[in-house]
């Protein structure tokens, strides 16, 4: 029998290895901690996500489910080793890059190992075989289709990438500039770096939705637990124990004081040696809980004056939103047909595969926090307030982000590790477990909506009256943003003369609801686009033609009175879908007539959307700095955090064409609040648009400076060569010697900086004004198959048309669309988070590779004058119309309308039974 403390010997990536960790330790953790093989990612520690897939004795396995002791004398291969040893792996990696199959990159190593194992046995797999092979690896970004395509063509001849020449970067299907390290597993995510001598931090969290608590003898606890250095509580916050993404509403403590307001709220943190922290029994921690009656839904909380969750918000209302135009009551009274209904959606979990993670270290009187974040400057400012130091004394260094989708706009580990490292003067790290991530991170707001929509016999929309109450949870987070954005968007992309939309965000004793891809717009669209279908049906009109008739034109005012003037491509989105709509509806009709047994029915549905890019009527500037180095290379201080959506690549493409340099002359400096100017948050589909525009302006400014020095005109061609720039104008040629120019404070021969803040106006009391400079538009057509007996619905096809203004990188845009569709599919059919239940990825379901149909993406380019080269955002747009299109398709197939999402099999079956009664 093997001895418990003996080392375990095995073959790791072809070499003999010895591990001294406990034999029951999970192999995934040993690979990362003992061998530094951080390409093996830990997403769930339960075999639910497959991110830790390795080869054990040549077979795929989840390294989180293998005891180190079980691999004795065995062979383990990880992404790092396979990258070197396997030709198939290297071809697969090239194929992933060429197809854009890696977005954030957190699932990529596991995906590649699983796919490589398939290709070694089966070089030309069918789609079904490829799906089976990667069915055990979850991806939240890509929607799987590009991964499947990359796998199926990996063994075909590899197409070498040709870098587009100067001036041709915009519009090119350029591979991700940061893609190589993602496919090799060497990209550094939040949990991938551990400074030496680093301590580990673990939070003590409330097990109750609402509870009073009192600590026992914390000093005695520290004394009794060797290896634990310190317990932190609210008393250890030197600055303000309060933060929030919107300063005016900030209300969240780092550590709760006396009362915990939601299950999962931190009340204390233990800091110590990793082994001591991992071994500690949290049950022994000296805290006494007194469970209090909790307000668990909107009805209980609204106006519950007896026990407000925040004393300064006695009716538990966080904020309200309102937009009105025309005379809605008169409009509805004068409508020939009015449809009305109520709708409901639940919490939705972001379910990125990378749980929150990072570390902090104190450097003199400064604190540095390296963390997975979507909002480095906001977090810099909040950490500064918590520590009671100046913002400049805080440095936030964003790591690669393994999926964010809005939730990593809020702080997670940042205040904890910053406080601990500040006090202890030793680096401190924290990695959320999957359960902790699901319990404590923000969610999509549950919504309760009621809407009335009226139209005339001519099919024209007359009036909309929309009301929504959002469950915003215990703290404000992005509740105000949802409450103000939603009333602007509830008209959908249509011209509506009479309009009223009212919203309210209500606190409950549940997990804070925050930002999630669309800020409430996906919820309202689920309601409104179903009612649009009902209206069309009542009018006897085709659902698509009804939408085309009402599609907003560039010369018509929106419901806030804004006239876009240009960049309003919704009609074209719908019209593009017309042939698909007709063909697929005809196919579904034929199938339903011929499929005799009546069990399966097919249906086709459609939905439209619009979405304002950037903050709502608030400044949201981005600043880009571009430097020309003496060696002729261009440095781009790219502060827009790339969370997988592709800003590292897209912004470089924009800069390249604005400057007139080939994209491969550009060196990216990743976001770092010490090195890159503020590019705002990666939210609201604003990075391509706002930061991209800033990059365009900075590029043009640098170009102008070069031209000025060469006394050349705007049409001159630049050639960036080693130590000089060659400027050609007609037959004239000048050379700007860079080595002869003095270098500036950043070390550049020439430098340019530009800031762009989208032109918007404030909204008046009725919400009238121009809240956004640019709107994205789109429409999805969904095809479903419903099993009438079992109530299951399967998405069998989807066509997406999006007006993106200008497609800077069509491949990356398709990736955003496919990924958005996957999340929309989840929202429609399977996703609902119930706090306190299902805090894992086997009870909370997100789509797998086998759930995603083929997606046909059609890009419409109706240029937005404010955008870089006319470009608009796409990140959130892609998700918004999917769920309503699916619900409309379900109705087409089964004649039932679900008023509550998701359409789980039990709900759908109950509705079908009800219809037949």
């Amino acid at each position: 029998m093997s001895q418990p403390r003996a080392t375990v010997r095995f073959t790791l990536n072809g070499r003999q290895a010895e591990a001294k960790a406990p034999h029951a330790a999970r192999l995934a953790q040993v690979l990362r901690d003992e061998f530094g093989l951080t390409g093996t990612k830990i997403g769930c520690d339960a075999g639910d996500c497959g991110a830790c897939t390795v080869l054990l004795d040549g077979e795929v396995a989840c390294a989180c489910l293998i005891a180190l002791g079980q691999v004795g004398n065995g062979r383990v291969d990880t992404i790092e080793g396979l990258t070197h040893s396997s030709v198939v792996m290297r071809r697969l990696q090239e194929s992933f890059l060429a197809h854009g199959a890696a977005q954030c990159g957190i699932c990529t190593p596991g995906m590649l190992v699983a796919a490589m194992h398939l290709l070694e046995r089966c070089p030309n797999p069918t789609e079904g075989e490829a799906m089976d092979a990667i069915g055990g690896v979850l991806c939240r970004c890509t929607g799987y289709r590009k991964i499947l395509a990359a796998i199926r063509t990996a063994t075909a001849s590899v197409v070498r990438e040709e870098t587009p020449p100067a001036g041709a970067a915009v519009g090119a299907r350029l591979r991700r500039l940061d893609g190589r390290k993602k496919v090799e597993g060497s990209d550094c995510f939040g949990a991938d770096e551990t400074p030496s001598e680093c301590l580990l931090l673990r939070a003590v969290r409330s097990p109750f939705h609402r509870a009073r608590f009192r600590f026992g003898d914390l000093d005695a606890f520290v004394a009794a637990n060797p290896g634990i250095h310190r317990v932190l509580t609210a008393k250890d916050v030197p600055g303000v124990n309060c933060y929030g993404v919107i300063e005016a509403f900030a209300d969240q403590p780092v550590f709760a004081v006396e009362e915990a307001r939601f299950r999962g709220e931190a009340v204390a943190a233990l800091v110590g040696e990793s082994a001591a922290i991992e071994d500690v029994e949290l049950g022994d921690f000296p805290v006494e809980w007194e469970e209090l009656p909790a307000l668990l839904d909107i009805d209980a909380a609204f106006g519950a004056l007896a026990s407000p969750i925040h004393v300064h918000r006695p009716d538990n209302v966080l904020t309200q939103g309102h937009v009105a135009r025309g005379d809605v009551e008169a409009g509805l009274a004068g409508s020939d047909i009015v449809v009305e209904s109520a709708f409901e959606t639940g919490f939705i979990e972001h379910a990125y595969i990378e749980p929150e993670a990072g570390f902090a270290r104190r450097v003199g009187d400064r604190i540095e926090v390296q963390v997975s974040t979507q909002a480095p400057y906001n977090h810099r400012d909040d950490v500064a307030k918590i520590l009671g130091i100046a913002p400049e004394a805080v440095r936030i260094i964003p790591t690669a982000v393994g999926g964010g989708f809005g939730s990593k706009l809020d702080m997670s580990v940042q205040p904890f590790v910053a406080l601990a490292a500040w006090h202890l003067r030793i680096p401190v790290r924290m990695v959320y477990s999957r359960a902790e991530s699901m319990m404590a991170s923000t969610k999509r707001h549950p919504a309760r909506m009621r809407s009335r929509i009226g139209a005339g016999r001519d099919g024209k929309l007359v009036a909309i009256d929309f009301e929504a109450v959002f469950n915003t949870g215990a703290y404000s987070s992005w509740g105000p943003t949802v409450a103000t954005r939603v009333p602007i968007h509830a008209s959908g992309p249509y011209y509506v003369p009479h309009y009223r939309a009212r919203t309210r965000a209500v606190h409950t004793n549940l997990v804070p609801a925050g930002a999630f891809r669309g800020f409430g717009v996906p919820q309202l669209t689920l309601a409104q686009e179903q009612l649009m279908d009902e209206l069309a049906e009542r009018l006897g009109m085709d659902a698509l033609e009804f939408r085309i008739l009402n599609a907003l034109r560039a010369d018509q005012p929106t419901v806030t009175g804004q006239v876009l003037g240009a960049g309003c491509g919704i009609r074209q989105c719908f019209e593009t879908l017309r042939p698909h709509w007709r063909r697929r509806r005809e196919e579904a009709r034929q199938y339903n007539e011929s499929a005799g047994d009546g069990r399966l029915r097919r249906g086709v549905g459609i939905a439209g959307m619009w979405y304002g890019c950037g903050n709502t009527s608030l400044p949201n500037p981005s600043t880009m700095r571009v430097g020309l180095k003496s060696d002729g290379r261009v440095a781009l201080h790219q502060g827009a955090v790339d969370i997988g959506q592709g800003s590292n690549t897209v912004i470089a493409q924009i800069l390249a064409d604005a400057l007139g340099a080939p994209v491969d002359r550009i060196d990216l400096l990743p976001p770092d609040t010490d090195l890159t100017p503020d590019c705002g948050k990666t939210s609201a589909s604003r990075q391509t648009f706002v930061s991209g525009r800033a990059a365009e302006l900075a590029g043009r400014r640098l170009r102008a400076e070069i031209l000025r020095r060469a006394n050349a005109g705007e049409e001159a061609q630049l050639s960036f060569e080693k130590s000089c720039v060659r400027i050609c104008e007609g037959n004239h040629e000048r050379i700007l010697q860079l080595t002869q120019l003095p270098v500036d404070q950043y070390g550049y021969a020439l430098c340019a900086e530009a800031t762009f803040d989208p032109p918007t106006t404030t909204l008046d009391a009725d919400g009238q004004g121009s809240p956004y400079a640019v709107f994205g538009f789109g429409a999805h057509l969904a095809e479903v198959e419903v099993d009438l007996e079992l109530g299951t619905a399967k998405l069998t096809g989807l066509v997406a048309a999006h007006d993106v203004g200008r497609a800077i990188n069509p491949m990356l845009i398709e990736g955003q669309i496919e990924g958005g569709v996957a999340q929309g599919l989840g929202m429609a059919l399977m996703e609902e988070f119930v706090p306190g239940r299902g805090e894992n990825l086997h009870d909370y379901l997100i789509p797998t590779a086998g759930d995603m149909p083929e997606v046909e993406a059609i890009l419409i380019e109706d240029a937005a004058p404010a955008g870089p080269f006319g470009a608009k955002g796409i990140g959130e747009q892609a998700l918004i119309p999917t769920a309503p299109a699916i619900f409309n398709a379900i109705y087409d197939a089964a004649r039932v309308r679900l008023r509550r999402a998701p359409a789980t099999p039990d709900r759908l079956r109950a509705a079908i039974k009800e219809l037949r009664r």
Partner: protein
Amino acid sequence: MFLRPRTLREALRALDGPEVRILAGGTDFYPALGERRAVGTLLDVTALPELGDIVVGPDLVRIGAGVSWTRLIQTPLPRSFDALKAAAREIGSVQIQNRATIAGNLCNASPAADGVPPLLALDAEIELLSVRGERRMPLASFIIGNRKTARRPEEMVTAVLVPRTIEGASAFLKLGARRYLVISIAMVAAILAADRNGRVSEARIAVGSCSPVARRLTTLERALVGIPLSEVAGAIRSSHLDGLSPIDDLRGTAEYRRDAAERLVARALEACTAGWLQ
């Protein structure tokens, strides 16, 4: 303490101590562990050669306790095992099927264990060994409740024994809310044997995820005997599922589960009759 014995004798001796937990594929053990570290003594049985074989004999199929689902899928077996193989393909993902063992699925005793309905339909028996000797019991007596088995602390499941008492078409249907990595809302395994006249000679039907332990539908099984294969689907009555006691949970309501189970039973039997009529 982590023990990795190389012989069954060693393993059984180790198991005769206090508080020893058996570790095999780890696919249920580690998820249940959550953030905690494993404490106490772990007995890893993955290095025991005695547990790794499938032996197909004339009267008995013996599946070693350590056989993985992948191994089972790859082994040629009589067609009454098709349902078991279909269930194997639905367990988690390939990563899970490669590691998870048949005995582990039974010992974990989840109401949603994919392997239980097909093995119940096969009238599988469990072989338990300890230093004190051997016990054999039907699977139906082995799993006694939600996450409860009749295994004594000093015993180890060493094999699943399937007497070859039925030869016939078999089918397994699992209903979940997504394609892969899914815990079933309801599932059904069925085996149908038929005589030369095309009438059912024996039917075995088991339903999972609809009661604390998967159950055979014995009234329905009896009702089907003697019925022509073509009339099997029409013979199902709602009352045949009265032994089930489904619950409401995140995956579905009790009412839905019962309703869906009835549909699945019909479809599984249709798949079996189609297998016969081919």
